[in-house]
C-alpha cells in the first residue's frame, strides 16, 4: 500500500541485528576475552580449540540466555500490564510482585535456606501470594483498573515495611540486599531452559489475543457493545503476565525499570498495535538486558555491578533521548 507498512519489519530487523551483536559481544567480552573464531566454532560446532574457552563460553551462553529471557519477559509483561490496567505508568511490579518476592526471599535467607532453588521457590510463592491478594481484594470489591492499582500500591508498601523489619532483625542483611539488587548469576542451565519454555508459551498465548489488548484502549461502552467482557480478559492477561514476571523475579531478583521503559520505547518506535508491539518489546527487552549485562560485567575489572543499577543507569538517558527526539501524538502518555 505504502512505504509505512515496511517500517515495522525494518525495526524488527534492526533490533534482531542489535540482539545478535549483543550475543556475540557477550560471548567475546568479559574477564577473559575470547577470539571471534572460537565463538563461531563454539556456536556452530559446539567445540573449542582450547578447553578453557569451552568452559568460559558455556558459562557465558547460560548467562546471555538468562539475560535475554529476563529482559524479554519483563518487557513483555510490562506491555501487558500497561495495556490491561490502561495505565502507562504500570510495570510488572505494580501489583505487588516485587514486594512479595522480596519479602519471602528475605525470609528464606533469614531462615538459612542455602540453596538458591529454595530461595527462588520462596520468592515465587511470595510474588504469587502478593499478586493474588491484590486481585482478590479488588475483585471482591468492584473490579476496575483503578482499584487494582490502588490496592497494589497499598500492598506494595505494606510488604515493604515487613521487608524492612525482616532486614532489620536479620543477621543476613547483606545477602538480602544483594538479592534485592538482582543478579543474572544462574546456577542451573536447566532452570533457564524451563523458563524459556514457560515464558515463550505464555507470551505466545497472549499474542494470540493481541487484538483484545488493542480493543481495551477503546471507549468502555464501545468495548461492551462489541460483546467483549473486558474484565474477564484483563484478569486473564494480568494473571499470565504476573506468572511470567514472578517466575523471572524469583530467579534473578528485582531488576527494575526494564518493564516500564522498554514498553514505552517500543510504543514510541513501533506504535500501539499489539500484534507488533508485544513481540517487539520482547525482542527489545531481551536485547537491552544483554547489553546491560555486558556493561555490568566489563565496566570495571573484577567487579560485577548489580544488573538492576545498570538498567536504570543506561536505560534512563536512552529513554529520555527517545522521548525528546520523537513527536508526541496527542493522548500518548495520558492515562487512558
Amino acid at each position: 500500500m505504502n512505504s509505512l507498512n515496511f517500517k515495522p519489519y525494518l525495526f524488527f530487523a534492526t533490533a534482531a541485528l542489535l540482539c545478535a551483536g549483543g550475543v556475540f559481544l557477550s560471548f567475546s567480552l568479559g574477564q577473559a576475552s575470547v577470539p571471534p573464531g572460537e565463538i563461531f566454532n563454539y556456536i556452530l560446532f559446539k567445540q573449542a580449540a582450547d578447553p578453557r574457552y569451552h568452559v568460559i563460553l558455556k558459562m557465558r551462553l547460560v548467562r546471555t540466555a538468562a539475560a535475554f529471557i529476563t529482559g524479554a519477559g519483563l518487557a513483555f509483561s510490562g506491555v501487558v500490564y500497561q495495556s490491561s490496567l490502561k495505565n502507562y505508568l504500570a510495570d510488572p511490579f505494580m501489583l505487588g510482585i516485587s514486594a512479595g518476592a522480596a519479602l519471602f526471599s528475605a525470609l528464606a535467607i533469614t531462615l538459612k535456606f542455602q540453596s538458591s532453588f529454595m530461595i527462588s521457590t520462596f520468592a515465587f510463592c511470595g510474588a504469587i501470594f502478593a499478586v493474588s491478594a491484590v486481585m482478590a481484594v479488588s475483585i471482591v470489591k468492584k473490579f476496575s483498573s483503578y482499584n487494582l492499582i490502588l490496592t497494589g500500591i497499598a500492598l506494595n508498601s505494606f510488604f515493604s515495611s515487613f521487608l524492612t523489619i525482616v532486614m532489620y532483625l536479620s543477621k543476613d542483611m547483606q545477602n538480602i540486599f544483594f538479592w534485592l539488587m538482582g543478579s543474572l548469576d544462574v546456577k542451573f542451565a536447566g532452570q533457564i531452559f524451563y523458563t524459556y519454555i514457560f515464558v515463550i508459551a505464555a507470551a505466545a498465548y497472549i499474542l494470540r489475543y493481541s487484538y483484545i489488548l488493542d480493543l481495551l484502549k477503546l471507549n468502555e461502552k464501545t468495548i461492551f457493545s462489541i460483546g467483549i467482557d473486558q474484565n474477564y480478559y484483563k484478569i486473564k492477561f494480568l494473571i499470565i503476565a504476573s506468572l511470567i514476571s514472578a517466575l523471572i523475579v524469583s530467579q534473578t531478583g528485582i531488576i527494575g525499570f526494564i518493564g516500564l521503559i522498554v514498553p514505552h520505547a517500543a510504543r514510541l518506535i513501533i506504535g500501539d498495535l499489539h500484534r507488533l508491539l508485544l513481540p517487539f518489546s520482547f525482542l527489545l527487552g531481551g536485547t537491552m538486558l544483554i547489553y546491560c549485562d555486558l556493561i555490568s560485567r566489563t565496566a570495571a575489572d573484577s567487579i560485577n555491578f548489580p544488573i538492576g543499577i545498570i538498567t536504570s543507569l543506561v536505560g534512563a538517558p536512552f529513554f529520555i533521548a527517545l522521548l525528546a527526539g520523537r513527536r508526541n501524538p496527542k493522548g500518548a502518555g495520558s492515562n487512558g
Partner: protein
Amino acid sequence: MDKIFNADAAADLKVRQNGAPAFYAAGLSYRFDGEKDDIVNGMNFEIEAGSFVSIVGPNGAGKSTVLNIMLGYNKNYGGRLEFFGKELSSCRPDELALKRAYIPQQSEEGLRLNAYEYLKLANASPLNTKDRDIDEILEKFNISHLKNHDISLMSGGEARLTQLAFALLRKPEALLLDEPVSYLDYKNQQVFFNILKKEHESRKITVVSILHDLDLAAYYSDKIMLVNDGRLLKFAPPVEVLNYKTLGSVFFAGASSLAAAQSEMQRESGRGNIHVICGGGSGEKIILKLLELNFNVTCGVLNAGDSDWRFCRANGAAMVEEEPYRPITPENYIKNIEYIKKSRAVVVCAFPLGGGNLANLKFIDEINETGPPEIICAGGNFNELDFTGGAALEYLDKIKKRAAVFNSMDEFAALIQKIN
C-alpha cells in the same frame, strides 16, 4: 475467541424479531446503586424497526441513562424492555453485539492506531472484518485517504466518520449514538448526519440518537423522544414535539439563534410582496397560505438551519438570512427593512423572541405611521414567547397598535384578502 457466539441463539432471535419493534418499553425505570431517586421513571415507548429516533432533553434529564439501558450497559432496570421481541436483560452481551452497534459521546481519544488497524477491530478479532469491507466503507464515506492516518491525529469530523464506519462494519440492525455531533462544527454535523441518514435508509437500520441540536433532530428524525426529569414527556414526529409549547416548558431558553447565507433572489410577480417575520416553524402555515393566494413571499431575518428557513428554502421564498446561532447583523437588519418597505404587508407571526432576533421587531420604528405596508400580527399572548425580559413585548405593543390582529388561520385569510 473463547466465547464463540452460538449460532442457534442468533437464529432464534431472528425468528422472534419478525414484525417486532426494535425497542419496546413498558414502565421502564432505572436507579443508580445507592441513589434514592429513579433517574429513569416509568417510560413507555415503542420504537419501530427501521425508524430514526432522536432523544432530546436538557442535561441530566436521563437521556444517556435510557440509551445505556437500551445498549444493555445499564443492567437491572425496572419494568420491561424488549429488543426485537426479546427481553433485553435476558440477552447475552455477545448476542447483543451481533445486532446493535454504538457510538459513544467521546471520540476514541489517545488511540494510537491508524484507521485501518482500528476498523479491523470492529468485530473483535481482526479475522472477522474483511479488508474489502473496510475499503468499501471508507470509499463510500469519502475518507479513503485517511486509511493510514492515526486516529488520535484526526480532526473531529474525520474521527467521527471513522467511528461511524467502525459501527457500520459490524452490520448492526440497530445503531445507538450518544450525542454524535456535539463537538463538530455545523458543516461536519451535516456531513455526518447526511451519511448516517443515507446508511439508515439503505440498510434499514434502526437509529436511536441522543441529540442536543433540535434543528438536526427535527430534520433527520422520524420521531423524537422528549425526555425531562427521567420521564418521557412526548414521543411523536418532530412537528408535534418541537413547538414552543412543548419545548418551552422543558428548556426555557431563547430558541432563536442562527443565521446566514445571502439570497438575492427576489421575484416580482403575482399579487405583490408580503414580508413574513417568523421563526422556528411559526411561519409555515402562513407562508403556505400566502403562496396559495399567489402572493410573492419574502421572509426575514431567519437564521440558517431554522425550520422556517428550511421551509422557505424548499418553497423558494426569498429570505434575509443570518448565520446559524448568531444575532442579526446590522447589514441584514437593513436588508430586512428594505424588503419590508417594498412589501404590501408585513405579517408578524407568534415566534419566540430572544436577544438575537429581537431586531426583527424594530422595523416598526422604521416605517410610516400608516400603510403601506400594512401590518398583520398574530394575536394572543406573547408572554410565553418572550425571552428578552419584556423588551419584545414593548415592541409588540407598538406593532399591535398599528396592526390588524388575527387569532386563527381563517381570520388571517380574511385579513389578507382585504389587502387587495
